[in-house]
């Protein structure tokens, strides 16, 4: 009779968490950077439009 020894999968949950932390962390940082850059550009645009109006 052949006995098969079934081993449980290794516990590397910490690596899985680290992997997902990187994936979500980088995406959140990128989305935040898009929002911050957009706000900053909108402020610049308002300022430039004000200057343009003053010149007229």
């Amino acid at each position: 009779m052949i006995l098969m020894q079934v081993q449980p999968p290794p516990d590397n949950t910490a690596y899985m968490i680290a992997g997902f932390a990187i994936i979500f962390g980088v995406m959140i940082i990128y989305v935040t950077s898009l929002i911050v850059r957009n706000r900053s550009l909108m402020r610049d645009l308002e300022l430039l439009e004000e200057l343009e109006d003053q010149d007229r």
Partner: protein
Amino acid sequence: MEPKPRILTILDGVTLILLAVATWMVLFYAPTEATMGPVQRVFYFHVAAGWVGMLSFLAAAVAGIIYLSTKSRNWDTVSLAAVEVGVVFIFITIISGSIWARPIWNTWWTWDPRLTTATVMQLIYLAYLMLRQGIEDPDRRARFGAVYTILGFVSVPLTFFSARLLRTIHPIVIATGDPSGEGTFNMTPPMLQAFMFSLLTFSFIFITLFWHRIRLGKLSDRIEQLKLMTIN
């Protein structure tokens, strides 16, 4: 500045819902792989991020070709947006792959052909972003950018096929029966469903971020024009 299109707002919502569902599928629906354990779940988003990165670089090259034939600077804005999104997602691919490799290959990094070509590809596009900064004239910058993204795209198929054509320990899970890679596994139907759903989700993430980044680029161009008008 054009107001945000309604369809983009809807797309933002749909993408977030898809990401939540994909995360649930990857963490709870797909079974734990027998030999690799929980870390194998990183694979679903690792490959999907790689797909988005390569798709972005393809979009950048196509925009580059269109720029060279039309000379419309809008296409340079599109190309830059695509490269930026691509660099972010290839970074995710490389780092998540390295975290997966530690328990599976027993090392964070090895100069395997797939890892090396992916790193070279990333460096090529990082150099694109840096070199652009050094060119003042917008037309010259756009011309340079277009030629660079077309030539740089050579690195994309090289990276994709490196694991198939060269001796590598990187697993090839899609469309191959080659068991030689360290960490190769056969996908069960729930695994395949989670994988396909992750690819779909990341494609939506790509479209959403790409669109937002193009809008940001157009806003930046408008400000650059206004600054020039104010100075003159």
